[in-house]
């Protein structure tokens, strides 16, 4: 088990500001913050190695990242594109399910659906199943890309169990979990 040293307060504050303004699912948000935290730390270390004090190095790193609100907004916008894809598939599944139930359970509904939309109960069921499987597959694919091995928990710490090595806890946000 290893723990990183406490992060400079300015860097911590910057990450908290991004966290507070980033509109994304919790796990995705924490993943983004973990990546930004690593980059900020490295940038600050490099600045320090160039002769700046710890506080100056952190300030320069924060300056390089720019306005936390703008960064959170830009990141959120990019992340929402994937959300729209999932939303469309969820919408299809949510529309197909009650229509299928109506067609199966309520007399006359299937005939009406066929007359108006050329949709049979079997076709609705197929649409529903395909939409749900596609949604599941896309989410799994995205998750596998991001979380290839082990267990990651971004509730202020990253916990990873990788291969045969013992679990490691890496502190990302000092002692305080992100909001």
């Amino acid at each position, binding site marked *: 088990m290893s723990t*990183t040293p406490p992060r400079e307060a300015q860097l911590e504050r910057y990450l908290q500001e991004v966290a507070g303004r980033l509109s994304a699912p919790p796990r995705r948000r924490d*993943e*983004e913050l*973990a*990546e*930004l935290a*690593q*980059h900020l730390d*490295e*940038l600050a270390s490099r*600045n320090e190695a160039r002769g700046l004090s710890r506080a100056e190095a952190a300030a*320069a790193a924060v*300056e*390089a*990242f*720019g*306005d936390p609100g*703008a*960064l959170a907004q*830009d*990141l959120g*916008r*990019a*992340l929402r*594109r*994937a959300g729209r894809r999932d939303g469309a598939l969820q919408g299809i599944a949510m529309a197909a399910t009650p229509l299928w139930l109506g067609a199966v359970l309520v007399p006359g509904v299937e005939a009406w659906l066929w007359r108006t939309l050329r949709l049979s109960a079997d076709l609705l069921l197929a649409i529903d199943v395909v939409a749900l499987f596609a949604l599941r597959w896309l989410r799994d694919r995205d998750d596998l*890309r*991001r*979380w*290839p*091995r*082990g267990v*990651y928990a971004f509730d202020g710490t*990253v916990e*990873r169990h*990788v291969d045969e090595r013992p679990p*490691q806890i*890496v502190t990302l946000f000092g002692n305080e979990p992100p909001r």
Partner: protein
Amino acid sequence: MTDATPLGRDEVRLLVLHVLTRGASHGYAIARAVELQSDDALRMGEGTLYPVLRALEQDELVTSEWETADSGPARKVYRITTAGRAELARRLRDWKSRVAALGSVLGLEPLAGRKGGLNHA
């Protein structure tokens, strides 16, 4: 901290794809590679880099994966895809023709088949 020229989103997109043709890399290394190669003349603002990386991922031009080394924390590593290489080739063609056209107008470099451009002299 430096007087480096900040890059726009399109330029960052092009440079990220280019850096990744040399191999998988993480965000910090991508930014540093651009600074190093340009002799600190260009600076890839980190505030632009990550939204661009997300957009490239959404467009399936790059993929990312958290990877672990023997020591240190897990890192998110990016790789260019086949579609990303094709996109880079297309953007490079566009970029070259744009630079050639600008050079011709500014009298810096004549377009092929022309005798010269506008000269300030």
